[in-house]
């Protein structure tokens, strides 16, 4: 009976709830994290491992290709935040309103791209963006009288292709987050607003947006990391990890190049640690500013 009371107390209950996370973290994360961190200070070849101090990090700062990768990832992250937060949010609000008919169909279609295997969607997008005349992008540009264009060989159009692919894959998923977020809003608040004679736009800014904040913060946080860590989209579009003049190279792409293709795990771990630190700084700044760590009243 004693243990039962102990476990049922309000002081102990939270620890019981979070226990699985603590266990999983202790077993599956502590050792790999420490190892990866240690490896970033080592030069690891097939047969021996040597301690090199911060040499990997100093080399990174001078590595032009890495800097290109960082710039690409940062640009990509910025644009995905601009495109993949407000629009899916508006779509979700529309979807939640009573002006759209046959909602189920649209939701299903918007969600489909995320389900399609990357192997196949990569092939489809590569065919659409090919510089050959049969690609859809070139069909459009030819119809408009511009002739064919090398979409995947120029910086701006390469980024455009990446963003089109990102929007295609993730709009539906982000909309889904916002839709479920909208459901956490107590509908009596809208009724109150209606009584006050608020316009739909006022309702959106005064009720929906503030109350959707937890969801928005979530989407923002994962988008920051997903943007910085993007790799698959680039790999799909260029059928591999090399793009002309590295226009599609990203931080994780570079990590992959070093760690897997050149088997230089020490250097790759340094890249990974830098990514971790950058993502953490941006996200913690954002989370603290948004008051996520504040005690709830």
């Amino acid at each position, binding site marked *: 009976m004693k243990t039962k009371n102990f476990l049922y107390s309000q002081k102990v209950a939270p620890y019981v709830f979070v226990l699985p996370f603590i266990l999983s973290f202790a077993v599956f994360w502590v050792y*790999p994290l420490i190892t990866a961190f240690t490896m970033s200070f080592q030069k690891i070849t097939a047969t021996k491992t040597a301690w090199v101090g911060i040499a990997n990090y100093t080399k990174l700062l001078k590595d032009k290709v890495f800097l290109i990768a960082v710039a690409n990832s940062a640009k990509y992250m910025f644009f995905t935040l601009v495109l993949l937060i407000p629009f899916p949010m508006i779509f979700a609000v529309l979807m939640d309103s009573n002006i759209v008919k046959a909602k189920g169909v649209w939701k299903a279609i918007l969600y*489909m791209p995320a389900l399609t295997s990357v192997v196949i969607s990569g092939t489809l997008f590569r065919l659409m963006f090919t510089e050959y005349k049969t690609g859809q992008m070139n069909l459009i540009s030819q119809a408009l009288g511009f002739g064919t264009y090398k979409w995947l060989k120029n910086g701006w159009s390469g980024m455009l292709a990446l963003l089109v692919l990102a929007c295609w894959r993730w709009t539906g998923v982000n909309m889904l987050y916002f*839709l479920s977020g909208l*459901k956490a809003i107590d509908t009596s608040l809208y009724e109150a607003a209606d009584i006050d004679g608020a316009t739909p736009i006022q309702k959106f800014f005064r009720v929906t947006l503030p109350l959707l904040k937890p969801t928005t913060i979530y989407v923002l946080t994962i988008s920051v990391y997903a943007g910085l860590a993007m790799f698959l989209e680039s790999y799909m579009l260029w059928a591999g990890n090399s793009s002309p003049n590295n226009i599609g190279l990203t931080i994780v792409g570079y990590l992959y190049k070093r760690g897997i293709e050149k088997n230089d795990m020490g250097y790759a771990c340094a890249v990974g640690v830098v990514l*971790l630190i950058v993502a953490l700084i941006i996200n913690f700044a954002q989370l603290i500013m948004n008051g996520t760590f504040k005690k709830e009243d």
Partner: protein
Amino acid sequence: MAKDKHRDLSHSPSHIVKSVLGTGFFVILCAIIAFPILAGLLASFRPGTELIRRGLAIDLNPTTMTLANYKYLFGGNADSIKYFMWYKNSLLITLTSVVLTLIICYFVAYGLTMYDFKLRNFLFTLVIATMMVPFEILMLPMYKEIIKLHLIDTYAGVIITGLCSASTIFFFRQYLSGLPKELLSAARIDGANEYYISVKIILPLAKPAFASMGILCAMGAWNAILWPLLVLKGAEKFTLPIGLNTLLTPYGNNYDVLIAGSMFGILPIFIIFLLFQKYIIDGMTAGAVKG
């Protein structure tokens, strides 16, 4: 109820205009989004060489379409047997991991949101931090660990490392933090214990979060490739994405099976989506706080 009020307005001319505009917007958006999938679907009814010959052409001419790829896929030949074996494995892994992940993550998030305890912010920081580590650098040490735990070449080894999914915990936490705290104190006053509250009072309110995370987790598990591949050995244990990826080689791609197989591979997650998404619709009702 709010909804009824809207319904009263729904016959006004301005509402019809809005409705046409709103629906029309989604029609256009969905047409664009659906294009590549439609093209892929059409391509699955043609021989793989056609895709190479003409690119991604939308061609509805029924005389050139054939069911050959699907016939082959369902034909009971060696490839088809393997395909459905991978399909089964993927279903098993996906269903198990979705159910376990949702349960575990909900309770962890519940603990992190509903209580004010010493380690709260520290643990939450850890949750966020684990989301930000690129898997590629953890791969090798995690692989060694799984060997030591004798979980190598088992589905348990594939599933276990992802059960405490940081992004799922985070989502639940954000969702739960939007719920009114009065619910808890009201229930405590009624004499309910902590665990009863978490299961019977809050959980039903979190249905939309469960639904969207269920869809998301299913998608992640269904499409995961690198970790399952490291853990599993032997084609009889492979999951569908691993199997489909073996059709792409530097020596040429088997588009016939690949496209048909991928298109058919969308189905289970799509079904999960259809089953779960209706729970996103029944969210909180007005005045839940009072209850």
